[in-house]
């Protein structure tokens, strides 16, 4: 039961430049929802100021969209979506330009 996670829009900077991660679903504990995954990811970020760039008020910060298997999570159950084996999750931050 493995989930693949990809970071786009500069979010890899918050995760030690890791662009892709593999996660054993068991690591999330009982709760296998996206909400739980987001919390798990946030815990990986040590610096509180950096954490705020990913995690705010119990979910991803504004400007980040979450994709599951090439679909916007709004088309699924958002935070309540329950992850399945081989799901591909992408966190992408909106780019404004330079």
């Amino acid at each position, binding site marked *: 039961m493995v989930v693949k996670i*990809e970071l*786009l*829009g*500069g979010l890899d*900077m918050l995760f030690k430049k890791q*662009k892709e991660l593999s996660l054993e679903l068991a690591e999330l504990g009982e709760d296998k929802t996206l909400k739980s995954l987001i919390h798990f990811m946030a815990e990986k970020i040590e610096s509180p100021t*950096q954490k*705020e*760039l990913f995690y*705010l008020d119990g979910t991803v*910060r*504004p*400007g980040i*969209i979450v*994709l599951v298997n*090439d*679909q*916007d999570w*709004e*088309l699924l159950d958002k935070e309540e979506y329950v992850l399945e084996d081989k799901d591909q999750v*992408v966190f*992408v*931050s*909106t*780019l*404004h*330009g*330079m």
Partner: protein
Amino acid sequence: MENISNYNDGQATLTGEEYARYGRQMIMPEIGLPGQLALKNSSVLIIGVGGLGCPAAQYITAAGIGTIGLLDGDVVDKNNLHRQVLHSTSKEGMSKAESAKQYLQDLNPNANILTYVEYASPQNLFEIISAYDIVLDCTDNQFTRYLISDVCVWHGKPLISASALQFEGQLCVYNYRNGPCYRCMFPNPTPVVTSCSKSGILGPVVGTMGTMQALETIKLALHMKGINKEPFVPFILLFHTFRFPQWKHIRIRSRQQSCAACGPHKMLTRSFIESSPSEYATLCDAVPKTEKNL
């Protein structure tokens, strides 16, 4: 600011020169004479004539879009030429909108090209956008992106938005049919990210995104005039130079009931946007210090 002519009032024929010039695209049954006339009778506003706006303007003009507006208050700077490839070293200091018009008018003398040597603002944008069928967001900052989207929603105009940073690009068609507006996707402004501000950009990355904006513009012009009848499915394109696969094509949410701009309880009225600058700015992050276009 110029007044838009009535060029796009529904011309039913092409000249012989136009038949020859556009022959290689008209030969395709998906375009044909009805498609070429649809392009000729369409008007497109390009906001920002920088890294995205340069290729977008080139291909839109070359394809025979009848009326093209170029809005940019900035001037040509050779330190931006690594990505703003329609300008040139000898035009240093010239208005980017005027520099682009010079180039584009020789690329296609049939195009009716209007320039607006100013930055997009709550005061000028409602009037300018009202005259166009399709709007392209080729700018580079959050405030202007929210503003353009909100004004497009107010006027019911579709918006083709792209952005690029470092080795990445994004493209989305907003506010068309059942599709979302920018605030449906991003209801709240992003907190200021200080860590990676001096980020840079690679020319062909922003060039690819701008060229793809031109492609989506042609598709949208054909769709709006009923030439292409396939249902519109909201999407976002994500690009990264160094990833495999380089491109992701993602189905996204439709219009959101909860949206402050386009939902049933829309609170972002024209009068609010035009006359409450500081209140409106808090809904779009901070007012940008320099509104330099990408």
